[in-house]
């Protein structure tokens, strides 16, 4: 009591705003909470409820003319700007086997996520399935649920998105009930991933809404077994941080705690799910876990038939499909595993879909005011940029005054819409492509009667006109320091 009174008097004396702990007390009404508040304050240097109250209406300010148009446009733009992703080309596990574990326990009946948690999660899970197969066409996905203390299988490990979507839609009718059991779900996932070959990654994504786990045995033993089996887990919490989830993520991801996220709002949940669609970057330790290897795959050709015939993959009559080159059996859709001989069947386009993970597009840099005069129109869509005076200062601290974003390679300016488009959907820089040179390119040489062959070559624009080429360096993350070059520093030269 006495302590808090002292502090209170200090504030009344009219001291100025002095730094985080003091500042946090300024706006707080004297509640006389006593010594306990002191202790809490010491623990962290300022809790979120003590921070200065952010009034959301302060963000919007009128400009001289009394109009809000400028600040509204700035807000819209700021919302469009995504997190700048790290664009160094890491080596990634492209062929993935992911088990999605959903919570069907009592805690999912809460309605803090609209309409209630389990419907919200299932809807987003359906979107996740689509996105996942869009980004990782040669991967496989399986879905489990935790209900009544047991782990139930919603759909088995497979590569056809429609199966999973149908299973999830059927699961919508399932009422959430009972306690979740993390251990049972993890054991079941481990079992499903047991026989997966070593070149594929094994991943588990858990969406946990409850704050407890009712397990039949020791979950730490399960976690250790997961580590031995090289399974990597990622958890999205809906309510609050749970220690066992944190331990699970840290242990299975070689000490990296960033794989555990707790949602702040619905948008944040979407973002966390989207993070899971990107393939995991390989670290030094994970490289030893999943060494590089060659995978035998088949590239079937399409046949169209006059009369429908049975296909082996789903026992349906189809008029055309793909013929497995090894056992000559017909399957109806790709990518799939041949049901007779077990060969992975894919199209070359599926491989091409994953290239942008390996060669990501560098993020665009905001153009400072002094360079804003260099461009009048967006290089991507030819829309007009707002005119900015050369010496204008940034009015908004977080918004861009010039609305121009520059590609570091070709130095052309883009608007925010083209920036988002290039990074999220197209994965090419429009300016680099339109100038016919780019940092990474694959040169296609054509042959007489065969499909073109590809060569991965890194080119740099050379002022002399000669082309210099180096092979692509695929980097591996060193967990302690940061990216390091592959084995031995000196890159071998390209021999023709």
């Amino acid at each position: 009591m006495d302590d808090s009174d002292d502090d209170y008097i200090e504030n009344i004396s009219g001291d100025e705003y002095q730094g985080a702990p003091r500042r946090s007390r300024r706006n707080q009404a004297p509640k006389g909470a006593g010594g306990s508040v002191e202790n809490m304050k010491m623990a962290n240097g300022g809790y979120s409820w003590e921070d200065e109250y952010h009034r959301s209406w302060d963000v919007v300010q009128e400009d001289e003319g009394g109009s809000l148009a400028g600040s509204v446009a700035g807000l819209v733009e700021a919302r469009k700007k995504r997190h700048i992703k790290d664009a160094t080309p890491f080596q990634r596990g492209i062929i993935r086997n992911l088990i999605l574990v959903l919570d069907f326990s009592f805690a999912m009946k809460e309605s803090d996520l609209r309409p209630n948690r389990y419907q919200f999660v299932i809807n987003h899970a359906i979107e996740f399935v689509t996105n996942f197969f869009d980004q990782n066409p040669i991967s496989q996905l399986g879905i489990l649920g935790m209900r009544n203390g047991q782990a139930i299988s919603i759909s088995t490990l497979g590569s056809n998105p429609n199966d999973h979507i149908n299973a999830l839609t059927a699961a919508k009718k399932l009422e959430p009930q009972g306690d979740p059991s993390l251990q049972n779900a993890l054991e079941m996932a481990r079992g499903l991933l047991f026989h997966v070959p070593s070149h594929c990654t094994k991943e588990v994504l858990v969406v946990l809404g409850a704050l407890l786990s009712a397990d039949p045995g020791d979950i730490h033993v399960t976690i250790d077994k997961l580590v031995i089996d090289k399974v990597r887990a990622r958890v999205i919490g809906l309510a609050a941080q749970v220690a066992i989830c944190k331990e699970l993520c840290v242990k299975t991801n070689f000490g990296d705690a960033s794989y555990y996220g707790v949602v702040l709002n619905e948008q944040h949940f979407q973002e966390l799910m989207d993070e899971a669609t990107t393939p995991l970057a390989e670290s030094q330790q994970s490289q030893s876990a999943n060494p590089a290897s060659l995978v035998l795959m088949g590239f079937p050709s399409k046949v169209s038939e006059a009369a429908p015939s049975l296909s082996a993959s789903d026992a349906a009559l189809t008029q055309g499909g793909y013929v497995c080159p090894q056992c000559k059996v017909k399957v109806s859709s790709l990518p799939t595993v041949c049901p007779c001989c077990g060969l992975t069947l894919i199209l070359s386009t599926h491989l091409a879909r994953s290239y942008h993970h390996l060669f990501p597009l560098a993020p665009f840099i905001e153009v400072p005011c002094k360079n804003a005069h260099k461009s009048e129109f967006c290089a991507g869509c030819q829309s007009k940029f707002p005119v900015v005076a050369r010496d204008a200062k940034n009015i908004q601290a977080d918004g861009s005054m010039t609305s121009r974003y520059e590609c570091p390679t070709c130095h052309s300016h883009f608007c925010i819409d083209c920036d988002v488009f290039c990074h999220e959907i197209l994965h090419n820089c429009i300016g680099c492509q339109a100038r016919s040179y780019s940092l990474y390119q694959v040169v296609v040489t054509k042959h007489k009667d065969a499909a073109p062959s590809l060569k991965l070559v890194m080119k740099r624009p050379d002022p002399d006109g000669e082309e210099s080429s180096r092979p692509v360096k695929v980097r591996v993350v060193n967990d302690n320091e940061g990216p390091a070059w592959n084995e031995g520093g000196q890159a071998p030269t390209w021999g023709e």
Partner: protein
Amino acid sequence: MNAIDGTSRQLKDTEDQTLDDTPSLLSIIIDAHVPSWEEIKSQISISEAVASILVFINAHLALHNSNSVNVIGYNASGARILYPPKSGVESTRSKEREERSESVSDGEQAPSKKDHSMYRQFKTVDEVVQTELWNMLNHTNYVEEEKQHNSAISGALSLALGFINKHVFVDESRMRARILLLTVGHKNETIQYIPTMNCIFAAQKLKIPVDVCKLGPGSDQVFLQQACDSTHGIYMDISEKNSKTPKGLVQYLLSGFISDPSLRPHIVLPTQSNVDFRAACFLTKQVVDIGYVCSVCLCIMSQIPSNRRCPTCDTTYSEKTLAGLGRKPLKKKKKKVVKP
């Protein structure tokens, strides 16, 4: 009272009876690589082709009052948006009129100021496209172009997609969009694979059909065929190699490529149906049916490389993994059953 229930009734006509009458944006990508046009000069001259293209653009604008068009040209040194021009349509027209009144070029008649016989919407577009296209063709260095083998198709596709993204999706208008690629193609053309595939996937995601019309005798670009197939577009080869002739370009364009995206589900598309999806090995350069894929860089090989290193990303494979790959399936020893 069920008859009055308004929850399920919709005010618009049901879809079967009337077609979706939305306007559409057509992005035409024109090959401006002069040496290629020179090669097929005997079959069709550039001015004839340009005239056909202009008639096709007019036809597209005639289909619907709010249809719009976007023209992009590309050659070995890059790609550029030709229509709509950056500085606005009116100023380009007046600038061009001034230029024309000063000089009459190449035996073309300068159009009289009193030429009012054309619908103004067609006329503005035609004038600008013609001017810009001729500028692009005239200002390229012929020798340079012949030397270079690059082709900026990926640049042109990226430009088209960026433009469509801004004007159709971001501005939330009701339009549909499609892309038509008019390529001549020559023997040594090299196309960047990854950027082009990225463009194709983006078009697939945004549901933009990509049509390809091939005029010249160069060999078939397989991944252009793949592009048309994945985006449900039309691939037509009207070169002499295919026993057709590019001289009838205008008729091919007007009959094959005129259909709107909203009409496409209802008609049979005149596209080539046998598309080769197979890949070629990096090492032996032959087409593979079954091959090994490097798990790091996804390159395709038809046999295990001899030096145990991947040719592209240079990762070494351990002995153990390679041994596992070459292993034949185990034969289970049959246990002898002793009969009593």
